[in-house]
């Protein structure tokens, strides 16, 4: 129970997206619905975890001067492999994510964790770190996409990406009260700004509490 609490606290305090502003390009772009958010989140989770494992396992033989190019090669290979697999087995996700799928390579979270964590820690710890960060990223994307989808479409739905059958669909807001602008870039920026401000407010509050103590 305590670990779950810690996990949730870390999710808010050290959130890679809303706290550290890492990987926000794709966050803003693809969170128009839950399907895309989960597709992107899981892709990043897989790339991040495997890249952490690989980089951790070669950390002792990688020459320091060219470690960044080597990391880039590892990450680019994994990203392309995932992209090809998604194209083959979940074409709807590929169509929705488009060019943002290959852009996972330049998602700062992945290179950031490689450099800051996996290059210095053992394989087991790096695996956990990859899963942890990837999950936090996926949840952040999901949170943002749920808000945008409900406000813009009035429904919350999820499709099975492998055969595009509907898993569930809930109607929440009647058609005449929907705010289409949340599908647009403006809506993306606004949603992100308010979520980030919310995270900052929580961080400020906990910091104050710590000071009082």
């Amino acid at each position: 129970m305590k670990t779950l609490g810690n996990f949730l606290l870390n999710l808010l305090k050290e959130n890679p997206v809303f706290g550290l502003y890492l990987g926000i390009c794709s966050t803003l772009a693809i969170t128009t619905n839950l399907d895309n958010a989960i597709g992107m989140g899981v892709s990043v989770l897989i790339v991040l975890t495997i890249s952490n494992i690989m980089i951790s396992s070669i950390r002792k033989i990688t020459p320091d001067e060219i470690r960044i190019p080597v990391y880039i090669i590892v990450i680019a290979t994994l990203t392309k492999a995932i992209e090809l697999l998604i194209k083959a087995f979940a074409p709807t996700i590929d169509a929705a994510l488009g060019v943002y799928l290959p852009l996972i390579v330049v998602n700062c979270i992945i290179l950031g964790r490689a450099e800051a964590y996996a290059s210095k820690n053992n394989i087991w710890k790096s695996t956990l770190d990859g899963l942890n960060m990837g999950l936090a990223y996926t949840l952040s994307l999901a949170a943002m996409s749920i808000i945008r989808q409900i406000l813009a479409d009035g429904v919350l739905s999820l499709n099975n990406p492998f055969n595009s059958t509907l898993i569930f669909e809930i109607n929440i807001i009647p058609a005449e009260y929907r705010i289409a602008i949340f599908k647009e870039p403006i809506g993306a920026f606004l949603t992100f700004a308010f979520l980030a401000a919310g995270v900052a407010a929580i961080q400020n509050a906990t910091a104050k509490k710590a000071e009082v103590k």
Partner: protein
Amino acid sequence: MKKIISLTLFLALASALAGAVLAGVNSITAPIIEEQKIAAVKATLKEIFPSATEFAEVKFEDASGKVNNVYEAKGQGFALKVTVQGYKDIITFLIGYDLNGEAVGFKVVSINDTPGIGMRIGDQEFADLVIGSSVPTPVDTLAGATVSSAAVVKGIEAAIVVFKTLAEY
């Protein structure tokens, strides 16, 4: 100097491994991706020409640059895939004409236009307008979505030009 060579070799080795991995993955996925592409087009073509069994891509000449692909439904007619610039983004649609020059099907393949304004060209209302038209009497624009629907109408005109070169109309 020795250092440069060792670094270069390490980088080359890493690149080679990457190349091998990707080639491996690609050899598994390439045929599946190819199949997916054909299946996706076939499904839409089947909606336009439900009774046709055989489809083939045909060569064509298009001066407008709007028509991307033309598919022939053997003995039934032609379906043309057209891409036009909408209000803000690009609209791709398929339009099917039977051998008499009547529009028998209209389907928007991809649209990323302003929600609330341009979206209506994806609606059944617009599809019905198009399907009621024919080569000699093309469609009118849809009120309220003038930029997008005007773009689509221009695309349909381009499709008609291409269609005339293909069918003995």
